[in-house]
């Protein structure tokens, strides 16, 4: 299972809409910083800053080509993050569905207990 350290970095990186948009663009294929900056109306340094965060989180890697240094998406940390959350969600959703059933049973038991107490009290009053 992925370490929490990696997952924290992944979630932090994904928390920003610009960074999610960059990843969505890179999902279509690799791109240079210039190409990435174009649709965002952002300066290249601002895009580079976001890329640095994505790189540190392992979500993006940079090519060796010194001029272009193309950026590409790394799918594994994303899969780890969504896999981990999915397991977490399933654990609780499945358990809570059973808890819903249990709570209905407990409420029914309580209602019966109340009735029989009332009946007993009523009898006690008469006696």
């Amino acid at each position: 299972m992925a370490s929490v350290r990696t997952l924290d970095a992944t979630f932090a990186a994904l928390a920003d809409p610009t960074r999610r948009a960059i990843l969505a663009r890179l999902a279509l294929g690799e791109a240079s910083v210039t190409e990435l900056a174009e649709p965002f109306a952002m300066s290249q340094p601002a895009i580079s800053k976001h890329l640095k965060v994505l790189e540190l989180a392992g979500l993006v890697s940079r090519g060796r080509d010194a001029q272009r240094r193309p950026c590409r998406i790394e799918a594994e940390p994303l899969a780890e993050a969504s896999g981990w959350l999915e397991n977490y969600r399933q654990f609780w959703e499945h358990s809570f569905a059973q808890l819903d059933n249990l709570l209905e049973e407990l409420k029914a038991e309580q209602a019966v207990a109340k009735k029989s107490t009332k009946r007993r009290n009523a009898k006690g009053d008469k006696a």
Partner: protein
Amino acid sequence: MSAPKPLTITTPGDREIIVTREFNAPRELVFDAFGKAELLKRWFNGPPGWTLAVCEVDFRVGGKFRFVWRGADGVEMGMGGTHKVIERPERVVRSEIFDQDWTGGETIGTAVFTERDGRTTLTQSVVYASREARDAAARSGMAEGMEMGYQSLDAFLADQVAAGA
């Protein structure tokens, strides 16, 4: 009557995961279902196909608890810890650690139960105690604070798949 609010998972801080869920029952009942071993055995089975094989709960401040879940293939997942705060029917705080320690050290789990119109909202938070995890998050520039719901990640991944990644 409207359906109870579904489960949400958020990661609002650099060390925290929060799960919320609404239950159609008064909070005393929900609280007891979390604290009494004989009730936990009836629902706390984990993911589909798993069962709660070991359920030991000393529900007192300083008392220990231990759970072991068993999967269909015989795989076991164990976790335990100590109760720090018990305020029926409102709040429980406990330390937690999984046998495999995949959380990078002990975590602190807090469950808060609030009731409205006969329904109980449970807010469960888990805070990671490890400095390492927190520092990694700080380095990745999340000081501005984040609100990353599972659904936005899900939507993002769906977009990605749709885009042919």
